[in-house]
């Protein structure tokens, strides 16, 4: 009874997630997430499986080959989505000090609390995996065999195997994240609280990037497997593809062949040969999937059990937490980019929010992932067709500008998120009206921790593509472009970064597509202009000078407007009173 109650309590906590739902009802969140998952998987499955219905004279060999690609797509998506679910629930995956302080004094055995938590984690993972898997598992095999002469029992078997293997792939993604987290926790001890956020952000970047690059890997999967490409052996989705093909691949492959027109027959023979050549490799991958799943499960459970042997409490301060004075980097920044106290406040608070505040860090990690996926795909494309330095292609040039635009758009959004509604009254109490200087600091932080690293990361690839001089000139353009964008965002911002209330994003739903299309057109025009300007030294200088003047004008306008401007920190108290519904008091 107690264990059931505790399991229910822990399950509810998964829905009280600051990342997904800072202030909303948990039933709304659950309904939204489940319906979103079911509808999106329905449309994706239909989009992939309809080709079987419209295939000219559907045959087993071609069906097996195409189905393997689809299955790899489903395995990959299921695994990444479930891993992302685990990362999003990062802090709720194990018992934390809050649980300890609430449950510790209660007369409940420690092992009951741990078991309830573990059961809640398992139920949460299974529920999500079910929602991710159910639509593809039912629809894809059904549509795939709709026009093939196959028995009902064989059809059902295909559905059951698809469901079981996809579910296992999804759970593997979840357990892998849990295993990484718990192992790290076991190894890092009291330092876990410090590194946990960074690891979470890195995992978000890696997973979202992988998710966006899925279409690039799920092509001709059977041939990739049979040719022994290292990618196939190294990537877990291929292991689970191997498992599924080992269990269910033969059902379609062993079907009797019909007489086909010559061209189709050649395709069918080639497809059958390709598929059958991959069967031994599928068996090997299936073994790998089984061992990896079991191994990861054992690792995660062992680390989880080890970490849960006693309730966790906040670490006690030690000599290591003593302040020994500002570091070299802090001194350097205070002497160079943020000299005024208000600018220093803006600079350091921005850096601290972006690195340590979970909602800010995770939004930025998501944007970094999108930018990284875009840059990877774009550069991969450009590498295949080396650009002539004298006439660089527009696509290669656009990459840098688009990556910066994605990152800075993310930064613009992050500034709208309050650091902490209640703690923000500090700004109200200590604000001396130096908004222009505070925003200077915020802008410089964006330049130092976002703009500069992005430009430096892109530079080596661009140097390889365009040659060193042109890549250098392009980098300078990128720097000026980034600074102009940061200033342009700041110039129209009334609210104080991180210190405002939650800003409604309803406008984004209606204006979003228009803004995105206009931005893409603007970026394309900017890059055409840049490409033309960088052709000659004089025009390049004029181009950079124009950008510098624009930057100066925006900065001057912004600083003049913000000087002495009152701070608009939301008053949190009236809403508190409103929630008490005092109007009904007679």
């Amino acid at each position, binding site marked *: 009874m107690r264990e059931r109650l505790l399991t229910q309590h822990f399950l509810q906590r998964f829905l009280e997630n600051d990342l997904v739902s800072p202030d909303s009802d948990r039933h709304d969140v659950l309904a939204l997430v489940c319906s979103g998952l079911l509808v999106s998987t329905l449309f994706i499955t239909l989009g992939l499986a309809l080709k079987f219905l419209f295939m000219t004279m559907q045959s087993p060999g071609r069906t097996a080959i195409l189905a393997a690609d689809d299955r790899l797509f489903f395995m990959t998506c299921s695994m990444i989505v479930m891993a992302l679910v685990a990362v999003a629930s990062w802090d709720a995956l194990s018992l934390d000090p809050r649980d300890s302080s609430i449950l510790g004094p209660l007369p409940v055995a420690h092992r009951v609390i741990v078991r309830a938590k573990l059961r809640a984690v398992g139920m949460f993972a299974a529920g999500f995996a079910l929602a991710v898997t159910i639509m593809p598992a039912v629809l894809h095999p059904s549509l795939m065999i709709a026009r093939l002469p196959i028995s009902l029992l064989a059809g059902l078997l295909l559905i059951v195997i698809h469901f079981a293997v996809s579910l296992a792939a999804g759970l593997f993604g979840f357990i892998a994240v849990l295993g990484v987290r718990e192992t790290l926790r076991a190894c890092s001890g009291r330092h876990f609280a410090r590194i946990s956020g960074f690891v979470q952000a890195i995992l978000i970047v890696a997973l979202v990037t992988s998710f966006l690059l899925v279409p690039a890997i799920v092509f001709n999967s059977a041939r990739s497997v049979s040719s022994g490409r290292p990618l196939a052996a190294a990537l877990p989705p291929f292991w689970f593809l191997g498992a599924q093909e080992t269990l269910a691949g033969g059902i379609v492959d062993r079907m009797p062949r019909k007489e086909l027109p010559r061209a189709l027959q050649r395709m069918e023979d080639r497809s059958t040969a390709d598929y059958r050549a991959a069967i031994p490799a599928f068996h090997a991958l299936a073994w790998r999937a089984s061992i990896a799943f079991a191994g990861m499960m054992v690792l995660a459970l062992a680390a989880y059990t080890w970490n849960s042997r006693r309730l966790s409490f906040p670490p006690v301060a030690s000599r290591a*937490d003593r302040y020994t004075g500002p570091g070299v980097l802090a001194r350097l920044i205070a002497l160079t980019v943020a000299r005024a106290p208000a600018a220093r406040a803006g600079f350091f608070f921005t850096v601290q929010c972006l690195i340590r505040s979970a909602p800010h860090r995770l939004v930025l990690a998501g944007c970094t992932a999108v930018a990284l996926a875009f840059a990877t795909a774009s550069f991969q494309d450009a590498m295949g067709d080396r650009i002539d330095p004298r006439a660089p292609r527009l696509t290669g040039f656009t990459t840098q500008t688009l990556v910066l635009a994605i990152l800075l758009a993310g930064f613009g959004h992050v500034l709208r998120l309050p650091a902490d509604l209640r703690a923000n009254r500090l700004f109200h109490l200590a604000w001396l009206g130096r908004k222009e200087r505070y925003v200077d600091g915020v802008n410089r932080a964006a330049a130092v921790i976002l703009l500069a690293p992005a430009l430096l990361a892109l530079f080596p690839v661009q140097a390889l593509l365009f040659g060193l001089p042109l890549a250098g000139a392009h980098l300078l353009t990128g720097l000026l472009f980034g600074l102009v964008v940061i200033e342009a965002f700041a110039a129209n911002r009334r609210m104080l970064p991180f210190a405002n209330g939650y800003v409604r994003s309803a406008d984004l739903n209606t204006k979003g597509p228009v803004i995105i299309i206009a931005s893409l057109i603007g970026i394309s025009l900017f890059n055409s202009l840049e490409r033309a300007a960088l052709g000659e030294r004089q025009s390049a200088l004029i181009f950079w000078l124009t950008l510098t003047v624009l930057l100066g004008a925006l900065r001057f306008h912004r600083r003049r407007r913000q000087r002495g401007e009152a701070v608009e920190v939301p008053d949190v108290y009236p809403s508190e009173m409103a929630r008490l519904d005092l109007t009904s008091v007679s």
Partner: protein
Amino acid sequence: MTAPLLEARHLVKRFHGIKVVDDVSFIVRPGEVVGYLGPNGSGKTTTGRMLTGLMEPSGGAVLFAGCNIGDDPVAYRRRLGYVPEEPALYSFLSGREQLQLIGRLREIPEDVLEHRMRALLELFGLADAAEQSISAYSKGMKQKVLIIGALLHDPDVLIFDEPDSGLDVTAALVLRHLVHLLASRGKAVLYSSHVLEVVEKLCTRVIVLHRGRIVAEDTVDQLRTLMSHESLEQVFAQLVLETNPAQTARDIADVVAGHA
């Protein structure tokens, strides 16, 4: 007699038509520690928020050195220190980072800020936890950060809203001596607390608030004499208590034991 530094003039605050603070007027002079007492929900914290400018009054005004604080809020903030009732701090910052943010927003020169911050962290016993995340701080540690933050810029007016909540015995004693010393150096202090013994020993004058209205204002000695009681606790009980505490305690004990 010195001119008042802080003045609440006919302050009123309504929430959805309900008066939470009703026509509250008082003054605080330099060198004075004024105790602000009242039961839960009497309007003490709301008054404090109006005095600091965090909340707009529905009526009346707050005057600083004779001028409405709304006329030049920045000048007022420069000379105001406030320790709020609830320790709302940025949980992702360390104690040192929170204080640095406050000091920089207040434009305290970096070397002065560095010196004061380190010294105060040491004196309040927080030096060993300065780099630890505030999320791991106890209530008392958070309270100390708030007190240091309110003192960093050497303000002329200090508003303490239950500053001793969560503090250990030593820190509470230090705080009591500190408030006394600050007042003796000319600071105007408004001190709201539920610990009546502290208020009795510390405050030059006491204001008792009940249901948003001031029900008594005088020196502790005068109040005791006027109401013929030996302690401030008895005076307070007579002014604001509507139930018999002993009877309520007996009822609670009965409910817990299952007799009621």
